[in-house]
């Protein structure tokens, strides 16, 4: 392994470690979010959502770092960067990339959990939102004293504005 390969390998390991940390954080944030969605107040839900948002701060930098590393490795291996996966990189680099292989397994597991949990949590939030929207519409239709059967959009502007 030449020096160039070693340098790219170190950069990839650093990136993967950062991504593992981010995915771990996202997983924890999603747990908090899921709890907030079901048991928390609106403020708690928003606070959990903001916590998720904090993880997006490094999203651009991580995305650029990932693109740079993959582009450099693609040039080094003489292949299109978009065709590279961690498995193919480990395969090309051999024994020296066993750390990457471990990180890949860890990251795959975490990212999978994040995807599953985020889908479920997102679905939960959407369902809550839909139930609430439906309940709100019915409630406002029933409680607007002079609605005269008007639609929610016609009668609820003031309430929404107050909210």
């Amino acid at each position, binding site marked *: 392994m030449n020096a160039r390969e070693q340098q790219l390998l170190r950069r990839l390991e650093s990136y993967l470690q950062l991504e593992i940390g981010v995915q771990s954080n996202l997983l924890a944030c999603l747990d908090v979010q899921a*709890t907030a969605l079901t048991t928390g107040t*609106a403020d708690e839900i928003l606070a959990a959502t903001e916590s*998720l948002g904090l993880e997006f701060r490094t999203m651009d930098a991580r995305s650029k770092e*990932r693109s740079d590393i993959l582009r450099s490795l693609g040039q080094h291996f003489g292949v299109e960067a978009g065709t590279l996966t961690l498995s193919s990189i480990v395969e090309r680099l051999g024994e020296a990339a066993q750390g990457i292989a471990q990180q890949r397994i860890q990251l795959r597991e975490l990212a999978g959990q*994040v995807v599953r949990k*985020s889908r479920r949590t997102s679905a939960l*939030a959407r369902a*809550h939102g839909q139930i609430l929207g439906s*309940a709100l519409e019915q409630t406002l239709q029933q409680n607007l004293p002079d609605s005269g059967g008007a639609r929610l959009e016609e009668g609820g502007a003031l309430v929404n504005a107050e909210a």
Partner: protein
Amino acid sequence: MSLGLNIGLRALLTSQSGLDVVGQNITNANTPGYSRQEVGLVTAPSLRTGSGLVMGTGVSADSIRRTVDDLLNARMLPQMGSIGRLDARLYGMEQVDLFLGEGSANGVGASLENFFARLSALSISPDDAVLRSDAVSAAGSFATGLNEVDANLKGMEQDLVSRLETQVRQVNALAQRISSLNDNIRKSEVVPGEANDLRDSRDQAARDLAELIDVQVSFDGAGSMRVIASGGLLVHPGGFAELEVGRVNDQVQVSIDGGVGALRVRGGSVGGTLDLLQNFIPQFQDDIDGLAHRFALEVNRAHSTGIPQDGPFHALKAANAIVDRDQDGLLGDELLSNSGLPFEIQDGELFVNVTNEATGGLTRHRIGIDASHTTAGQFVSELNAIQNIAATLDADGRVTILADVGFGFDFSARLNPNPDGVGSLGGGRASLGTATTAPFALTTGDTLQLQGLAGPFTVTIQPGALAVDGAATAEEVAAALNADPNLAAGGLTASAVGDALVLQTSGAGAAESFQVLGGSALGALGWTAGTTVTGSDTSTDIAITGSYAGSENDQLTIRPNQDGVVGTTPGLKLDVFDSSGARVAQVDVGAGYVPGQGVEILDGIQIEVGFGQLSATDNDVMVLDVTADSDTSDVLPALGLNSFYGGSTAADLSVRADIVKDPSLLAASSTGAPGDGGVLAQLLEVQQASIDEFNGVSLAERLGEITIGVGLEISNATDAVEAEQFLLDGLEARRDAVSGVNVDEELVRMIEFEQAYNAASQYIRVVSELSEQLMTLV
């Protein structure tokens, strides 16, 4: 994966429970007694997986709790009871205020004023038939006004009893409802959690109950409500008791099943209604009856001693009947003061005047009334003892007085215009009076030796003639002497003139004479043996005019200060003594006095002394009864003899029917003289006279006090209701803050949630997309 789905589903269901509660809150925002509910969320029980891991299972709704401050609720109950009670009282008092018609031209106060105004108009021209009719009509209007107040009060009392019965039925229904809710709550709460809506319903029932009656609420260990109403256990975990309305000693009461005696209800509309029935209405009834009673007594007092337009009575029947109180079948033995008469009889005296319609001569008779001893029979006997009238006590208990033909009678305080009926002051007969007055120290067997024109003779006091030996009254001595036939045979007669004894010849003129010879009675009578008394050809006429303006009944004794001729003898005067023996006036009838001229003695009384001789030596004497009140015993209004009003309460007060029919029977005159309205003047004084029974205020002021009293009570009750309502409003505001539903807040909460969910959904979708991108790398 299935565990994850379960967690999501549970969370979704939990979220839906929360929203259900929000919807429940909003739907019941205006439901009385509804308490805001909240979802209690807990972490769902963890599951241990086959691999030994303990996995969370999300969230679940543990309970739906009412947000209730039990202390606040408990504090509200007595407050609601206070308002219920005050409202009920206010309702009744406002009704009573309407009955009085204060401020209205037809109100009781205006009727009373109109009555006295009509009397005032009549007093200017007492014989005017139209004015008499007006006065009688106005008197009837006032009585009718009081009758209507009484009828309205009784009607209102019946209405209130009906209201009370309805209120008690409502109490029973609520007690049953609370008891039923106790059962349902116990059954519902066998499984964990509270039956919030049932508890709200029970709390509301308790509040409804508190508006009806004062209640205390407590809970047993199983959550059953125990209600104590006015000290009685109304609802208990095993059931409930019922209240019922009853009467004890004619007083409306509320009692509880199984309780001893009546409940002392102090709060709620039941308490207020009972307060009206037990206190306010009886007190007002007493007040208005007291006014009617006193008014009737005062008017009848004045009227019964008056004389109708046609003059003295020939027949009079009492309106009120003696009642056989001791139930021995006899009416005559009933004490006048305890014989069921409507007005109290006191120690006093009644003067009866009997008029000879042919001569105009009048005799006055005094009947003493001892309230604790005089019976109806004795009173009738006293009347029968008066010459020319006869009295009976009918089988129905009414006293009837009839005058002999040619005679009339009345009870007026008028002066006797010819008080010297026997001619003992300057009369033509030979006359010897006693210088001293009774009692005389005479005993049975005492004698008096006299010589008349036919020769000497002796008269003896026979056994039984004197009630008390050694203390004979003038009447007893005169009767005893007259009882001895020797006196009449000797041409003499004895008379009692006041407390003096007068011995006279039967005939008049200078030829008439008699001589006192001796006897054992001389010393006691103050006479001297050898005294000779001679008649006169000139009889001195004595006449009394005017009307007595003094305040006390009295008997004046008039004696000359010396022997002399009226209008001629210098220094000849008449000394006037009151009943205590004090000289209260002296009238100069000597030289310079024109015989027959009226001279004032005292207090509006004038004496006219005709020409003739007066003798101090022979103890000339005359008495004159002066009467401020001819019935100080009130026996006339009590018996209803010549009353103006019949009845004595607000219910039965009415103008005597024959007066309504013939207003000339209104006894306006105190003397019987045409145009005299002396009684009208007395009646007018009734309006403003201070009455001890009313703490010194007059009848008109007393009516004002009653009217103003009701108004003040209304004002106080209104203020109290406002104050109590203010406190209750404060408590309800605090309760609403704790338990009430604010629809806006609930909606804002929903919208906040909706926005939070949407934001979260979008963020998480981004997370998911990014992570999916990452998955393409790994």
